[in-house]
């Protein structure tokens, strides 16, 4: 498709289980972001991938969170031993950006709604 694709769109999981969220960025976009948005809250930066550079993981809230990206394509966000506080929508975004400066619009997916019960 033409946009950023995320799956699953909705996920209900039991506390303590692991979950994987997938993001397919727009073809050709070198930058990929993961954000978290709790109900009624703003966007919380999690992690940023830019080409083959080391990712910026400064926003990951704990070591239960990790993310990988294969080249400049698909990314997977993994949450281990989920807690109820992890319930949120996880938004992926991508943009075409040079290493030195972007200034390019980032495009968001529709999000993966995670509910931990």
């Amino acid at each position, binding site marked *: 498709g033409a946009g950023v694709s995320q799956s699953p769109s909705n996920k209900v999981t039991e506390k303590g289980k692991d979950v994987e969220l997938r993001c397919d960025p727009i073809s050709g976009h070198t*930058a990929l*972001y993961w*954000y978290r948005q709790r109900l009624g*809250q*703003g*966007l919380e*930066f999690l992690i*940023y991938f*830019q080409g083959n550079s080391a990712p*910026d993981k400064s926003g990951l809230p704990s070591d239960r969170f990790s993310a990988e990206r294969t080249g400049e394509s698909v990314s997977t966000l993994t949450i281990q031993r989920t807690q109820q506080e992890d319930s949120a*929508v996880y*938004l992926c*975004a991508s943009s075409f*950006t040079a*290493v*030195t*400066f*972007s*200034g390019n*619009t*980032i*495009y*968001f*997916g*529709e*999000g993966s709604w995670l509910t931990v019960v």
Partner: protein
Amino acid sequence: AQKVTQAQTEISVVEKEDVTLDCVYETRDTTYYLFWYKQPPSGELVFLIRRNSFDEQNEISGRYSWNFQKSTSSFNFTITASQVVDSAVYFCALDLINQFYFGTGTSLTVIP
């Protein structure tokens, strides 16, 4: 430190009123971009506008207008003659080298 501040958490206006959403940013960089995104109740984030730091000319697009003032580090967004469909959360964002910074959003409710 918060790089983008949207001091207005929630705003309610009556339909057809004008409303301005404030955005103040912080950076020492001379080159940067500013954005506004809209998040309607359906949840997706929709790009509205991008402005670079060298272009302080105000912009108008239909009922939307943006006032960029470097002197006050502000990039405010005005909706003229608001409509119910404008009800959404609006995010201001700052694009520095390799990193976007989002404000916490302003929730706008337009009452019919």
